[in-house]
């Protein structure tokens, strides 16, 4: 294996070793966990207590501090899933497969959170729980894409095959996301005269977007924590036959 791929940087195939990945993730986890915890707490307090209320939407505006980070995370998680899947397909890298698989449930829950907060925010803003707003609609479709990937993972018993199939599907979805987004945006402008939108607003004041930034970074740290936890689990399951896993288990 090694002499065939010597053009790759060293860390790349160190990463390909499940054991090395397991250990490095174990070392990184506490740091990210602390960062996520502090950032999310600080961000939430700032968002709820100190950020000013919006002149139009009042205090319901504070939902943005959940809605935007979760929507962003749902999208970037999909990207990560597709890219990790592609790496797994091309270089037969097992760890990348496991990362891709771990992305799916996190991304799906983030999409659900973005949809739920969007709907809740919609009630005081638009007067109804659901509006076929372009952003909400494309988030809904993103959720469908996630559900498809998860369904495929659970339908195929062979782990290696499931990983590859899901990677192909995720890549197909990735190509489609811009098309879907464009078509939904366009369809939305056709069907709905633009009322004021949830998140698109002219120049937000710094005391409003700073807590948002904190929350976004906090969400990403939280994502890292959850992803590493799940990936470590996947590594244990798929490497159950390896001697280092047995030694690890014996120690406990």
């Amino acid at each position, binding site marked *: 294996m090694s002499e*065939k791929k010597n053009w790759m940087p060293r860390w790349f195939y160190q990463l390909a070793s499940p054991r090395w990945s397991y250990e490095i993730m174990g070392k990184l986890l506490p740091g990210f966990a602390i960062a996520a915890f502090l950032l999310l707490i600080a961000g939430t307090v700032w968002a709820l207590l100190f950020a000013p209320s919006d002149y139009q939407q009042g205090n319901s505006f504070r939902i943005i501090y959940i809605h935007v980070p979760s929507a962003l995370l749902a999208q970037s998680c999909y990207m990560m899933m597709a890219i990790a899947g592609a790496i797994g397909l091309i270089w037969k890298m097992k760890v990348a497969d496991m990362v891709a698989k771990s992305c799916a449930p996190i991304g799906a829950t983030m999409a659900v959170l973005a949809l739920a907060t969007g709907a809740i925010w919609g009630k005081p803003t638009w007067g109804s729980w659901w509006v076929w707003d372009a952003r909400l609609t494309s988030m809904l479709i993103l959720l469908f894409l996630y559900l498809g990937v998860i369904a495929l993972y659970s339908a195929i018993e*062979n782990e*290696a*095959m499931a990983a590859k199939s899901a990677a192909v599907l995720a890549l197909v979805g990735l190509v489609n996301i811009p098309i879907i987004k464009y078509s939904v945006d366009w369809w939305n402008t056709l069907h709905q005269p633009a009322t004021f939108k949830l998140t698109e607003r002219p120049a937000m004041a710094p005391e409003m977007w700073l807590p948002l930034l904190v929350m976004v970074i906090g969400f990403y740290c939280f994502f890292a924590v959850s992803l590493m936890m799940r990936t470590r689990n996947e590594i244990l399951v798929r490497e159950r*036959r390896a001697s280092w896993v047995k030694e690890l288990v014996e120690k406990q």
Partner: protein
Amino acid sequence: MSTALLHVDKLYCERDDRILFEDLSFSINAGEVIQVEGQNGSGKTTLLRILSGLSNHYEGDIFWKGALLSTVQDDFRREILYFGHHPGVKAVLTPEENLHWYAAMHPSIDGKKIAMALEQVGLRGFEDSPCHTLSAGQNRRVSLARLYLTSAKLWILDEPFTAIDKKGVAQKEQLILDHAANGGSVILTTHHELAISEKVRRFNLDELAGT
């Protein structure tokens, strides 16, 4: 690397939590006939599927004429013939149409000799009957007719003699020997006692499998 037609180096394959084979290394040279033996579930079919390039759930390396298999796939596919559990015969097509389709898919198959080959496998007079009207054995013979048509170097045959009568088996064994005599190679599995066993190299997966 020697000039072995196919060389397998430290092949490892596990399936459903079971190691089928581990550290499996062997070569197939030109003119050799190899019979893979082993109990049911010992991984014979899996091995043949891996060798044919259908499955890549393995670790280790496979070399075709000295080059890594994954780098010479197109050349490799030009020179192999695979006969699997499913005969690869379309039920609604006639034997002749089925073989014409193979010829389109595999340039190693000579489409002009199809009538001759069907006669060889005893399907004369059935050329125009859809395959679903034929018996299971006849369907397999449609697929085996490819052996008379192909110019492929390596034949990978998984249980080729199932549902074939004695006379047919003897005939196919002779065909295999002829192929080997002409410098071709065969790797096969079968439950039949081969009449040509003295010319066949055997190879038992049970003894190789790590438990």
